């Protein structure tokens, strides 16, 4: 069971690198922000799985909740700012 969670964290940290392609060469600014949001919400799951592997889930779950709130506030604030910017292809 411990082995399963370790393999799962390896697979998940490979999956996290896939939206980085869209962050590096997205055509517009919104594509980059969407890729950054996807990376953040996958990191949230990786923190939980690392907490289960270490056996300290009571500490890591608070970090997870704070990270989720931070990611949400960042996306809302940047989308409020980008509403006034002219879109370029």
């Amino acid at each position, binding site marked *: 069971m411990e082995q399963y969670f370790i393999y799962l964290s390896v697979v998940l940290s490979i999956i996290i690198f*896939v*939206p980085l392609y*869209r962050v590096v060469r997205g055509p517009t600014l*919104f594509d980059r*922000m969407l890729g950054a*949001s996807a990376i953040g919400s996958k990191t949230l799951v990786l923190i939980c*799985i690392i907490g289960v592997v270490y056996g300290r889930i009571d500490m890591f779950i608070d970090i997870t909740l704070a990270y*989720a709130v931070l990611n949400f506030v960042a996306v809302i604030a940047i989308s409020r700012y980008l509403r006034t910017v002219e879109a370029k292809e």
Partner: protein
Amino acid sequence: MIEFRHILAIAAISAGVFFMFVGSLGIVRLPDFFSRTHAIGKSDTLGIMLVLGGLALYLGVNVNSAKLLIAVVFVALANSTGSHALARAALLSGLKPWFRKESRGRERTP
């Protein structure tokens, strides 16, 4: 000794990782910003909810699994709201949706 709920938790976590892989494949392969918003807003949210729910099922009944369920509810509200806000900002700032070449006839005003 593997119990029955551990098998259910392993099935839920594996399905969640599969859905997250499909979501991050969609953000690379789809042709437009709005369709990429579709991939992140639905498939990725379902994957995160399945993995966190499977972890709560693995941990049993205590305070930590209750906090995990709070995180599931918050992610289900926040991730779709964030992608909707990004799509609305893109539409208000004048980004055109993608059409096929032959079906360009429909005019759409934001």
